[in-house]
């Protein structure tokens, strides 16, 4: 079974600075997706960024980028120019790309990010 580990329960960053959130995962599969979801106080789960395992290039979405290390099974999220609105809980998640599976998302425990003005 796949597992996702987020070992830091909380992090803090100064507004306009850069912060990196860590995530590791364990799988025996070669084809999968990795995601970072943001959950603000509104509780809504918002997709921040996705990475396909077969792609070597790291995904980027505006101020958000990932460092995907497939061999090390590491998937960190970098937030540049942090804004107050980035304060939220962030979840790392894994999903198999094999069509015969139930394609569920497996989540890490999450990390609470606070942004200092």
């Amino acid at each position, binding site marked *: 079974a796949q597992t*996702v580990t987020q070992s830091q*329960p909380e992090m803090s960053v100064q507004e306009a600075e850069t912060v990196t959130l860590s995530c590791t995962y364990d799988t025996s599969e070669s084809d999968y*997706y990795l*995601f970072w979801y943001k959950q603000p106080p*509104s*509780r*809504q*789960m918002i*997709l921040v960024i*996705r990475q*396909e395992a077969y792609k070597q290039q790291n995904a980027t979405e505006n101020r958000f980028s990932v460092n995907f290390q497939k061999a090390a099974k590491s998937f960190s999220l970098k937030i540049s120019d942090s804004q107050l609105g980035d304060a939220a809980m962030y*979840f790392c998640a894994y*999903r198999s*790309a094999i*069509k015969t599976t*139930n*394609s*569920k*998302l*497996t*989540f*890490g*425990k*999450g990390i609470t990010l606070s942004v200092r003005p």
Partner: protein
Amino acid sequence: NAGVTQTPKFRILKIGQSMTLQCAQDMNHNYMYWYRQDPGMGLKLIYYSVGAGITDKGEVPNGYNVSRSTTEDFPLRLELAAPSQTSVYFCASSYAGTKSGELFFGEGSRLTVL
């Protein structure tokens, strides 16, 4: 474009009561899921469905039941509510074998059992 709609958003139950959390999606997704979120524990899969008439257990199915009579609807039933079921519940959906891999989530339902 409603996406995934969950009702109710909040509910307080007494121990032993029953209730159904409703979930509907209008995106014609094959796959639907129920997760629960407890503080510090991430989201755990309760049940999932790969299509109408097909459901299966996830990691934490005890105390819950589901049905999938249509593509659009995937209700979650709590038969005898217990304090351990106090949680936030999320319904989600996706295409089968989607290239994006993304799950679309509802806004969540906060359930308290007293």
